[in-house]
């Protein structure tokens, strides 16, 4: 066990945990932030996507020792409201397990587009969300939701 200090959704946290404990488990079990879901646990499905210092990652593949001093953003974090609204309005969710990951990934994608001066279009959306699997196979509405979020200027 060792102490790990990092920021989650703007709040400073100190967690005592095995250094190789998955960030996913720290978020869900130690910090009671259960918005982040576990899908495959192997980095294939994207359900557990969170941002570390603004970059999307699979939290099942990140040991807590690697977020020391970092800023972690989960689906509960600030700045995701407009994307959540877009998914609500477009019906971009069915059973809901993949939804938090899709929302975080959409936010990360829109941030990247803005940073790199790229126009978010459908091809880009499909590419950005390729690592987020939906087993209800509702991809049509998921892409529509991401594009609706983009159309609103992707504002935070």
């Amino acid at each position: 066990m060792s102490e790990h200090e990092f920021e989650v959704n703007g709040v400073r946290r100190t967690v005592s945990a095995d250094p190789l404990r998955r960030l996913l488990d720290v978020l869900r079990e130690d910090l009671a932030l259960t918005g982040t879901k576990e899908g495959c646990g192997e980095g294939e499905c994207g359900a557990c996507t969170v941002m570390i210092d603004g970059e999307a990652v699979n939290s099942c593949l990140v040991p807590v020792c690697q977020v020391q001093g970092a800023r972690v953003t989960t689906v509960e974090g600030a700045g995701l409201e407009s994307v959540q609204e877009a998914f609500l309005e477009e019906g971009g969710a069915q059973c809901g397990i993949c939804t938090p990951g899709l929302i975080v990934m959409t936010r990360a994608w829109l941030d990247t587009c803005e940073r790199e001066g790229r126009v978010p279009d459908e091809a880009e959306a499909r590419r950005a969300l390729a690592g987020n699997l939906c087993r209800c196979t509702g991809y049509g509405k998921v892409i529509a939701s991401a594009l609706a979020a983009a159309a609103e200027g992707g504002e935070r």
Partner: protein
Amino acid sequence: MSAVSPTSLDAALAALTADTVVLAGGTDLMVEFRTGRTRAENVVDIWRVDELRGIAAEGDGLRLGALTTCAELVRDPLVRERAAILAEAADEVGAEQIKNRATLGGNLGTASPAADLNPVLVALDARVELVSTQGKRELEADAFLRGYRETARRPDELIGAVLIPPPRKRRSAFRKVGTRRAQAISKVVVAATVELEGGVVRSVRAAAGSVAPRTVRLRGLEALVGQQPSADAIAAAVRAVDVTPIDDVRSTAAYRELVLRRVLVTMLGRLCAADE
């Protein structure tokens, strides 16, 4: 479970022992730990060793820190200019979430036969810089990748950087064949570079993944050197390529062998098309 997270290269090297497991971006090892295929004991986490990061010009070539992520390879203008197929391969490694974490050094150190970057490194004649408390040494990528998940790294060494030679006039190509475009482990992955001079092949270097227990340099193609690259010469060279693919959950040996040869014929044909 036990792990230490040094923040300097000296401290990381000092922490290495005979049975250390070196952890970089975790995209492979975190799954290995969970399934028990690799014991999560004596882990040295190098993620915060900043000396292992960074992309820099070295002469007309490149020096890429071992912790360079696939995402960094994709967006770096210098990499795109001097090692375009490395950026291309890095873009196809997996989803955005994986590219943000998976590292160049991790690809080499894990030495999976399905690794997408390793055939590119062999095709580019890249060298692997290994560091230890004793100093540095360099190995060709092909010599570094010794076998199935086996490398020439000694337990007291870390991969420090990858050195890419100047591109000269080499043309290059990369092709990954997987079940889907994003987030698929390769059924077959191929990278090649060709240099022509006066209509004659001056050099060929090609390598493939997922067709043998290790990333394999396709030496059979090197018989093209000194020849005019006619369709017949290319076909003969491709026939001479020797690989040992297997049947597994992702594909069959027969499919892999057929696709490899067809990809090679097309790829070499294009790379050897009339001088511009």
